[in-house]
């Protein structure tokens, strides 16, 4: 077990932004909520998957909808507790731990922002190992776990219990409800046994976010050293060194899609990186050829500070280094690729990766 105190929150949010691969929502509001919770209740306990008892109920929680709404209509603070408690009531069982479904972006913070009483540890794991836009894009789904019964709550006290025939229906129905609730909601879903949690979650992702964030925020380290340590830690690779020369965004339905073009610098002089994103970075193409795609993580870092640059803040002139971190193994399975591979996002090719084991 380890503890997350006030001092760790900034590192965690930086690491979560990295794992957000350009999207996932700014953790800023979530961090302030977690800060308020820690000030009131003390440090948060983060337990390892191996520390889970033999039996018991684990409940994942998250925010759903537009992070843009949450920066304006900040939550009440009691939503996570209410959602978890209602799911406990439905199941007739108390949870022994809660967890996030998404370690990338604002959802890394949501289970931490419990305002009181819910004296539960946070499981050091998630179900994406990064950020993804839809509810069925989880390792739980790949492992055949149902996302329902699921509870959706808003800040007013409304709540909704869903029972669906499959996880895509859950995504559709709960998103519609979220819009009616004002564009953002808090959800508790994929209730599971400790056994399922051990088998189907991606372990260690919260502490990974913490450690990576702490590394990126380490002002004492020279940039080159920081970058090589980062890549070593995650077995990652540099995709490209370059300068942003063009950013095009278009708003489609509920997502911002777009393309950023980088002109190569240093070793990449003369080459062009084209980065396609839909909230998160999806595909990195060098000179027209896709080299890294979802489900691997594609992260753009400021060249000097190595602080992650989100797709919302990409602008002309930024000097950046694009890196890739290998995705969790679950995403390399056939069902994993079907759920979050490039074809699901409308591309006509299979996943590309710079990670050796992915290409075997």
């Amino acid at each position, binding site marked *: 077990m380890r503890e997350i105190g006030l001092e760790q929150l900034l590192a965690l949010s930086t690491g979560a932004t990295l794992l957000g691969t350009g999207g996932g929502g700014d953790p800023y509001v979530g961090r*302030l909520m977690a800060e308020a919770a820690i000030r009131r209740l003390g440090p948060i306990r983060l337990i390892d998957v191996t520390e889970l008892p033999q039996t018991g109920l684990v409940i994942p929680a998250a925010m759903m909808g537009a992070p*843009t709404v949450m920066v*304006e*209509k900040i939550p009440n*603070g009691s939503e996570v507790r209410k959602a978890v408690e209602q799911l406990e009531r439905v199941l007739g069982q108390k949870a022994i731990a809660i967890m996030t479904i998404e370690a990338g972006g604002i959802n890394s913070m949501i289970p931490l922002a419990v305002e009181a009483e819910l004296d539960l540890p946070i499981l050091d794991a998630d179900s994406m190992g990064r950020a993804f836009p839809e509810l069925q894009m989880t390792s739980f789904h790949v492992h055949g776990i149902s996302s329902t019964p699921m509870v959706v709550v808003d800040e007013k006290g409304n709540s909704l219990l869903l029972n669906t025939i499959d996880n895509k229906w859950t995504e559709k129905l709960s998103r519609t409800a979220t*819009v009616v609730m*004002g564009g953002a909601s808090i959800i508790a879903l994929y209730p599971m046994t400790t056994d399922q949690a051990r088998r189907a979650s991606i372990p260690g992702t919260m502490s990974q976010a913490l450690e990576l964030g702490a590394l990126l925020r380490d002002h004492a380290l020279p940039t080159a050293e920081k970058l090589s340590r980062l890549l070593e830690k995650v077995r990652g690779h540099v995709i490209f060194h370059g300068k942003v020369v063009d950013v095009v965004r278009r*708003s489609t339905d509920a*997502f911002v899609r777009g393309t950023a073009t980088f002109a190569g610098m240093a070793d990449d002089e003369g080459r062009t990186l084209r980065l396609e994103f839909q909230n998160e970075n999806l595909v990195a193409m060098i000179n027209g050829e896709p080299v890294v795609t979802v489900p691997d993580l594609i992260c753009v870092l400021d060249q000097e500070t190595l602080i992650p640059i989100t797709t919302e803040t990409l602008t*002309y002139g930024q000097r950046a280094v694009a890196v890739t971190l290998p995705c969790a193994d679950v995403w390399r399975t056939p069902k994993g690729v079907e759920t979050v591979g490039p074809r699901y996002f409308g591309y006509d090719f299979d996943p590309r990766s710079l990670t050796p084991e992915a290409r075997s």
Partner: protein
Amino acid sequence: MNYRLGVDVGGTNTDCVILDQQGHVVAKAKRPVTSDIITSIRQGVADVLGMSRLPPTAISHAMFGTTQVTNAIIERKSLNRVGLIRLGAPATLAIPPLTGWPEDLRAVVQQAQVIVGGGHEFDGREISPLDREAVKRFLAEHRGDISALAVVGVFSPVSSDHEVWVRDYVAENYPDLPVTLSYEIGSVGLLERENAAVLNAAVTDISRRAAASFAEALSAAGIHAETYLTQNDGTLMSTEYALRYPILTVACGPTNSMRGAAYLSALKDAVVIDVGGTSTDIGVIRSGFPRESAMAVEVGGVRTNFRMPDLISLGLGGGSYVRERDGRVTVGPDSVGYRIVEEAQVFGGSTVTYTDVAVRIGAARIGTRAPSVPEELARRAYQEALRLVEDGIDRIKTSAEPVPLIAVGGGSALLPERIAGVSEVVRPENYDAANAIGAAIAQVSGRVDRIYAMAGRNREAVLEEARVAAEADAVRAGADPDDLEVVEVEEVPLAYLPGNASRIRVVVVGRLRVGAAQ
């Protein structure tokens, strides 16, 4: 007899300039800022008036740009004790107001706060009805211990009804209590807008004092002109309007320089570089106005989201220290500042500054003595300074195309003729008084920056509604209703939000109405 006086009170100098009806510079003067500020304004105004040989009555308009509001926040001095009403319960309770503020600033500003029922959804529906009784109770309880009130409602940029009700109630029942409504200052992002509103309320008194000192300096010189304050988008506010939104004067200095640069060079679209003694500001003018920053901007350590010019500030100026260590040559970020006239080699001192290396390699002619810095070191230092400048220009540009660069400020004489990414370096006459000239030539603006729910509405009708609101704002600020021009229309569909909500921003500018400010 229709002359304009422009005054820019900066960190180091108070610059004054008088323009004639055609906008030509008649006289300019520079005075070091005094600790009481007003003395330097009085001196500067007397100097410039004397040089112009005009009678005081010839001055019909006086425009002031000042850092006093900024400094009050940074120094945590002379700030109001603020009461805050947030309209949003049961939402927003998770993060209390003023979270993340520096402790010393919060201790000075924060007096009383309450979160009551009210506020709206992104599409304009009410989150909950406005809890009028709770508002009334709060005011009755705290009227005695607060000297300004800030009001922020959830999604007030979409619907300001609840904020406006509070203002009307206060006007009727506590007419002496100044009120800041958040929707008039910031856009989406509750905490940042709330911070901006609280800061605005906190500088109520200091802005009144600044306005009073301007009036006093003018009357001491026998000038009876209409007075205006410049705001950070490069336009003017009547004194009355400025007293309602004093926070908008923050960062008006760099803006005035950029506007002055645009005016003096007659260019509308360009990069502007303002090189001073200590630092350099690089910004972009688009249609003659500074481009605004899209990022959250910190003021005095507080995260806000109100409009600010997009600027890159470099620790590079005429007085920047030049050093060589471990084979590396650095210029700045620290500077001898105003002591340059004693310490730089070209003035007989012993410190190597940016000015000395520029003179040594023949890029500039300044001072009374030849600098003794070795030529090789000078060349490398000058290259390093140029690299900093080129890097900054490249970062602020929005495209790879070369653009014209307007160089202003006393230190801009050090810059070379050829700079990477720049099509030409334009050095206008009176470049050293660009800030005061920018203040003197400013027009009046009005704006709207709100979220409009577009569903079921004609897009043209929505844009028209926004334009009319922006024009009304300009007229309130002192513009001539018969001389208004729309300079910016921006429509951004909000991501992740179904139902077609758009953020619409319209900016109009206009000539000063004669007899506008009383």
